[in-house]
């Protein structure tokens, strides 16, 4: 019937479905965030588009598509146009390896389950910085430039602490495969949040910084840098940055769930393995709620304090955690 091998077609369909789900999840995450910010702030949030504002994401999308796509006169055209695509592409890339749960026979529900899953996610996240930094640089606007510089500095500094906060998990689980880490947690009946609560906390903080969320939303600090790196972007290109940010939010929540909260592990999963997907999504939802809660509560850090916090506190602490966990693992023998 076709020139493509079966596995390629299956992969393409799976990826297509997943991208559809992720993008829909993004749209409703945005609605949920607006609703919840509304409730936090004595407001109702969107109520006009459809029942309970449910069509608001569609309305937003239509509005963005219909806007004029402006390009500043001095912009570096190729980089200016490629930057949002780069941001969203790397954001989506991470989903290739995220196991959403497991089937009755123990196979992880994921596009791919490589044995270097966590490294892949970190690599994709690291490339994501380019989208923001290049977008800020190519706009040829001073505000964008400042935003781009901030994001480069911030993301690189926090990436270090983030990577180091993951190492204890890898050492305890003895594998870099995300499915393997989850399996190790459910095999020991111990979510890593309990032994590794400090790395879990560090990961949570650095994840906020990685996704440019409040209180670390410095690259786009509205009240300081107008809109930071995406000041000059309009229309769908602006929307693409937005999509990337929210998808990254879901990604870090998912990774946090997998690394520290047992992934799809939960009550009754032995009897009903498909329940793993539900538990996974519930946990991710709770993580997302906490991120939105922080946004409603906390003011923004100052740039230099952010750096101090990252380099002088988070990094040494995570190094100490790595050393301690390494010692414990060595003392307890190979698990």
């Amino acid at each position: 019937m076709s020139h493509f091998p079966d596995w390629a077609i299956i992969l393409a369909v799976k990826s297509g479905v997943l991208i559809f789900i992720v993008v829909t999840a993004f749209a409703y995450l945005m609605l949920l965030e607006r609703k919840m910010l509304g409730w936090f702030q004595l407001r109702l949030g969107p109520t006009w588009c459809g029942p309970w504002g449910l069509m608001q994401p569609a309305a937003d999308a239509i509005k963005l598509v219909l806007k004029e796509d402006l390009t500043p006169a001095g912009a570096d055209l190729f980089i200016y146009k490629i930057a949002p695509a780069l941001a969203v592409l790397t954001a989506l890339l991470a989903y290739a390896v995220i196991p959403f749960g497991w089937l009755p026979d123990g196979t992880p529900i994921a596009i791919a389950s490589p044995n270097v899953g966590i490294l892949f996610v970190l690599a994709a996240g690291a490339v994501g910085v380019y989208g923001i930094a290049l977008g800020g640089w190519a706009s040829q606007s001073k505000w964008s430039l400042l935003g781009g510089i901030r994001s480069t500095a911030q993301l690189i500094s926090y990436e270090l602490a983030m990577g180091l906060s993951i190492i204890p998990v890898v050492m305890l689980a003895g594998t870099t495969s995300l499915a393997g880490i989850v399996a190790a947690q459910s095999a020991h009946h111990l979510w890593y949040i309990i032994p590794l609560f400090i790395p879990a906390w560090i990961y949570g903080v650095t994840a906020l910084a990685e996704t440019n969320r409040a209180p670390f939303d410095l690259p786009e600090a509205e009240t300081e840098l107008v809109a930071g790196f995406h000041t000059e972007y309009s229309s769908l290109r602006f929307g693409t940055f937005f999509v990337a940010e929210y998808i990254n939010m879901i990604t870090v929540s998912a990774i946090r769930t997998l690394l520290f909260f047992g992934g799809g592990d939960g009550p009754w999963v032995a009897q009903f393995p498909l329940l793993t997907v539900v538990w996974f999504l519930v946990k991710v939802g709770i993580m997302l709620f906490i991120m939105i809660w922080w946004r409603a509560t906390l003011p923004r850090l100052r740039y230099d304090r952010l750096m101090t916090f990252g380099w002088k506190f988070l990094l040494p602490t995570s190094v100490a955690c790595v050393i301690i966990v390494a010692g414990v693992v060595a003392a307890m023998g190979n698990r």
Partner: protein
Amino acid sequence: MSVDLAALSNNPDLTLSPGDDQDTLVLSMGPQHPSTHGVLRVMLRLDGEMVLTAEPEIGFLHTGIEKQAENLFWQQAITVVDRADYLAPLSNSLCYVLAAEHLLGIDAQIPARARVLRVMFAELTRIASHLVWLGTHCLDLGAQSIFFYAFEMRERILSIMEFVTGARMHQSWFRIGGLGIDVPKGFLERMDDFIDRFPERLADMRAIVEKNVIIVDRLVGVGKISQQEAIDWGLTGPPLRATGIAYDVRRAHPYCDYESYDFDVPTQTAGDSYARFVVRLDEMYQAWRIIKQARDRFPDGPVVIDDRKIVPPPKTEIQHSMEALIHHFKLVSSGFNVPEGHIYQAVEGPRGEMGMYVTSAGGNKPWRVRWRPASFYHTQALKRLGPGNLIADLVAIIGSMDPVFGDVDR
């Protein structure tokens, strides 16, 4: 292509010395920037994110209010005076009205009820203005929710204003000779409700922001100014009191019987943004105390003086009395004359000493209404406070000085 920045700017502070144009960035912050509170433009010279020089530029909201006031009858000018500092319209008109009453020599005749209501509403205005400051300042620092809590409370105040005067913002309620109209039925119930609720809500808002680690970190030591410098730069109001000088026009030069009210003048000694922050929060509580005392006095009686040459007769009388009709016609068509003279009148507005130098040439219009807006002096101090800080700090400093550009530019 190299741009000769010195030629582009008429501003000596922004000219670059030879050789350093590679390292610094000239950035125009505003007039359309989310944190310049309207239309301030600050020309910055940056080294990275460090501000080397900051030059505030004003005038984007100039509406010629001083000149307009010269072309309106004494009583009519209140409407334009209201619109200068749009967050504290009643403080503006109180200042103007007091000046005109002094020139007319009727300041001692103002009925007690009008004086009490003036105090009450001037303090309500202060709270409303400080609530806007609290919300926007915290928003500048990145805290979103407090903005809505503050504005919800302000909305209660504005709805009381609307209930009494018919307007939420530009009430034009204080008139030469008293008040425009008496308060409607049910006013005291609404005031009592507000007086009951406010301290708790204020305490809630303070609990959210005052000791917040990030807010303290962002504000302490930022935009510090010494007592002497604060005086040299002409700071008044909360920025001056934050340096430890307890100068308050309500105490120093009382008007509207402020000397008979029991209130404290909150001061701090640090002189930084956090000190200004705490002073304003304290001031809201003191304003509430004054309102409470005014509510307890609340005398009966008329709200305007009984002088037909200044205040038009009530409508019911106009329908029956020829003389009243003539008085009304004269006041509406040509106003009243104010004896020749000049006066500087100041009131303690929410932002600081709100002064007006009013000159009368004896006619039915003011000859000159010259303002001393506190915001103007606070804005010029940015030149002193800005350098040496980060952009994020500059935003915090602008917020803590709380300028209103309707007031600065008039």
